[in-house]
């Protein structure tokens, strides 16, 4: 019943925050905008039936990764970007291309996806922790273990990079 209004609300928040992220000159404002995008995406995930992934989105993305970003921004005391951009040419070429591509994508989506395909709230029941966990530890066990190794490597890399000597 509230599907459409909720979707529209949070989609609008997400788009607004995303645009704000790009337009703000100060990194911390951008970071907070990104947190806003992530939060509204979490709500959209809930609408799509992904409870677990919504919680993980908040915990991992908003709660850990973005905190790290904020921390780094604060640590480096990063200021706003300086106004004049030397290389506007690239952007002038790339941005129209980009929006052409986006329009192309939208056309493709609207023509390719059946009109009847709709997201019915509550229809998707597999988004809980149980079903995801079952898949993760059976079919996707090897990728899961590989990602744990990846994380280990990332930790080591971060430690090595953050040492004082380098």
């Amino acid at each position, binding site marked *: 019943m509230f599907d459409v209004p909720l979707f529209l609300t949070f989609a609008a928040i997400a788009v607004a925050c995303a645009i704000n992220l*790009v337009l703000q000159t100060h990194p911390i404002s951008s970071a907070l905008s990104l947190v806003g995008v992530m939060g509204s995406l979490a709500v959209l995930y809930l609408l799509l039936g992904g409870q677990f992934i919504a919680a993980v989105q908040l915990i*991992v993305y908003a709660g850990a990764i973005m905190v790290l970003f904020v921390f780094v921004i604060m640590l480096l005391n990063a200021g706003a970007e300086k106004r004049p*951009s030397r290389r506007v040419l690239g952007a002038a070429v790339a941005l129209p291309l980009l*929006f052409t591509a986006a329009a192309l994508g939208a056309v493709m*989506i609207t023509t390719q996806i059946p009109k009847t395909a*709709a997201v019915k709230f509550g229809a998707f029941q597999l988004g809980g922790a149980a*079903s995801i966990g079952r898949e993760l530890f059976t079919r996707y066990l090897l990728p899961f273990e590989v990602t744990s190794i990846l994380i280990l490597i990332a930790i080591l890399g971060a430690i090595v990079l953050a040492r004082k000597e380098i």
Partner: protein
Amino acid sequence: MPFQLPAEVPLSWYLILSAILFVTGAAGFLIRRNIITVFMCIELMLNAVNLTFISFSNALGKVDGHIFSFFVMVVAAAEAAVGLAIILTVFKNRATLEIDEVSSLKL
């Protein structure tokens, strides 16, 4: 005929939203000059992709999309850890966050 809201959200809306977010992220990548902001634009693109995964997962009634986006998040976390460490090191050595000033990796 006045515009009538559908009773349920069409799948294409989610995909278009995801496309918009992705394009915004890509545009940000191209026009921002602060390394951290550029990095955040990458995260935005990853998020957009995640939304696509989840939407298709819903449409297909399979849980695999969730798994994929879970992995995307894990990779994003690792990427953030290493990337931010690199940014810290760059800042320590060059005292700049301007992405165009970090361009010595060329012939």
